[in-house]
């Protein structure tokens, strides 16, 4: 199953945007260019296709709640404001499918209403609904996953693929366990509040070697210079000051420069180590969504570490047939992307003269990359776009 196109109309700065994603999709752009809005649009599409769109669902997916009028594009140059927010996804699963939904933003409550919804197979309508349908339908609920017409149909697989989509945004206090995760979704929490539990679930001893998911712990520790090991335990006096608030389980680290009994938890560890473990856990946990987003992938990572983690993370995404959409401001993340692999795609987001977000897929020849012009340099020098123009 391959997603071939996602399109968004009339949603915030995305007045009319479509793009062809791969499995690993990285968005770069100046602050305020619309990168996070793209992640949110995909979240709304996922909610609309598989459930419903309201505040509760949006929050569970990590989407910022706006006032109703601000969900729709409001550019000065628009002659008429669009009535609906329109989204669509196309995919190939032996045959070509497309799903389209037109939603009206909330008026009297927090529910987005379905103006119309349809799914096509090879261009022929499989099922659809609109305000003019005779059937008595609840306009607050999406019917793609529940209508009897599509029961057992292959097209439902896409719904299952994207239904758990969420925007992950790990933050340091949550990873340290001192602040509750506002969105404690399984398996790891959108901010990382369940990380210790999630790590424990995939930390295994195999033939005397410790493995986290499919990776040897020893290989992971190569990325965390100072650590000689980690485990998941209950917090105790020896590793955490009793005055510090804590989760039920904590990550216990050993430092290769310290004596063996000097263990400490994520509360005292370098934040970079916590972000590395978060990304790897998200990539390898069997209950992680098939499709998800990460806002600011590079947060708190040293540039070299960001590059290495990008390489490993991308590889894990491809091996597990997952799809990820992520944003970054770190040029070295780009150097970790193998753009010669068509499943790994880079997009520059910018605003046009009138402020509308524009997406460009960036492709670079292998010859140019090998001639001393890595992606990081091409980005910093402005060649890729996705930079503030006047700085």
């Amino acid at each position, binding site marked *: 199953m391959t997603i071939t196109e996602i399109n968004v109309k009339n949603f915030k700065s995305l007045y009319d945007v479509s793009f062809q994603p791969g499995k690993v999709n990285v968005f770069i752009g100046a602050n305020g260019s619309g990168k996070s809005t793209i992640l949110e649009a995909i979240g709304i599409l996922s909610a609309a296709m598989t459930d419903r769109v309201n505040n509760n669902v949006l929050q569970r997916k990590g989407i910022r709640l706006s006032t109703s009028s601000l969900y729709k594009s409001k550019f000065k140059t628009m002659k008429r404001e669009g009535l609906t927010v329109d989204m669509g996804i196309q995919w190939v699963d032996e045959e070509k499918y497309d799903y389209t939904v037109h939603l009206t933003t909330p008026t009297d409550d927090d529910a987005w209403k379905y103006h119309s919804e349809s799914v096509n197979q090879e261009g022929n309508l499989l099922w659809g609904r609109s305000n003019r349908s005779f059937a008595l339908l609840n306009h607050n609920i999406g019917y793609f996953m529940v209508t009897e017409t599509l029961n057992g149909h292959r097209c439902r697989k896409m719904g299952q693929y994207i239904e758990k989509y969420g925007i992950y945004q790990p933050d340091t206090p949550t990873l340290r366990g001192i602040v509750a995760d506002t969105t404690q979704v399984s398996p790891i929490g959108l901010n990382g509040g369940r990380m210790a539990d999630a790590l424990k679930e995939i930390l295994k001893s195999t033939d005397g070697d410790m493995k986290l998911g499919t990776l040897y712990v020893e290989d992971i520790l190569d990325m965390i210079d100072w650590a000689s090991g980690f485990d998941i335990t209950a917090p105790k006096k020896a590793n955490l000051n009793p005055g510090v608030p804590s989760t039920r389980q904590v990550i216990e680290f050993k430092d290769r420069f310290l004596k063996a009994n000097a263990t400490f938890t994520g509360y005292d560890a370098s934040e970079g180590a916590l972000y590395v473990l978060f990304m790897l856990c998200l990539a390898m946990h069997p209950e992680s969504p098939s499709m998800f987003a990460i806002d600011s992938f590079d947060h708190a990572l040293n540039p070299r570490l960001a590059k290495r983690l990008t390489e490993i993370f991308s590889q894990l995404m491809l091996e597990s047939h997952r799809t990820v959409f992520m944003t970054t401001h770190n040029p070295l993340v780009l150097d970790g992307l193998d753009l010669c692999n068509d499943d790994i795609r880079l997009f520059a987001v910018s605003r046009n*003269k009138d402020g509308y977000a*524009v997406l460009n897929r960036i492709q670079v*020849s292998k010859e*140019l990359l090998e001639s001393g012009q890595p992606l990081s340099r091409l980005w910093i*020098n*402005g*060649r890729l776009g996705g930079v503030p*123009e006047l700085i």
Partner: protein
Amino acid sequence: MRKMIGIVGEGPTDYMVIKEVIDHITGEANEYRRLQPEPDMAGRFGNGWKGVWKWCETNSGVLDKVLHEVTPQIDLLVIQMDADVSRKEREVHCLCGSVGCEAREVSHPLRCAKVTEGQCPVILPCSMHVQDAGGYEEHLRELIRQWLGICANNEDVLITIPCDSTDAWIVAAYQDCDDVEKIENPWESVIAR
């Protein structure tokens, strides 16, 4: 048809003005990339005329690849440098050979100690060029071609040398005179009056 246009210019104001001029001339909302060199460790050569020089030299061997082997491709590269650089800056006359200098063979003009120490022997105005707006423009145009390693008929690159500087073109809007583009040093001869 909309084009993707790369602009290597001295600063953000030049970039904004050039964008607007090109859109006005072509009647299109073209897409632009502002291309800039990385500054060195001391924060130098990341912008201004020295930045343009550095960008041209850094990209001379890979210019075709930089323009055409990244998608979206760049249809046209605009290089801008103010003509007053020829009138005011000794470094750009280093290779003209109007005076002898032992440092010429060993130092890059942008990093030459003689310049920073105020010992550069170049005499301005340089005797190797015609001393008017057209002369300054021709000098810099040829110099930029040398830096980029391109010939005069290269259709991918448009070199634009505003006289005396991009900002000075405000004169054209307020001064009702002939041959406005040929007024030398408009800051003093027109604007300051």
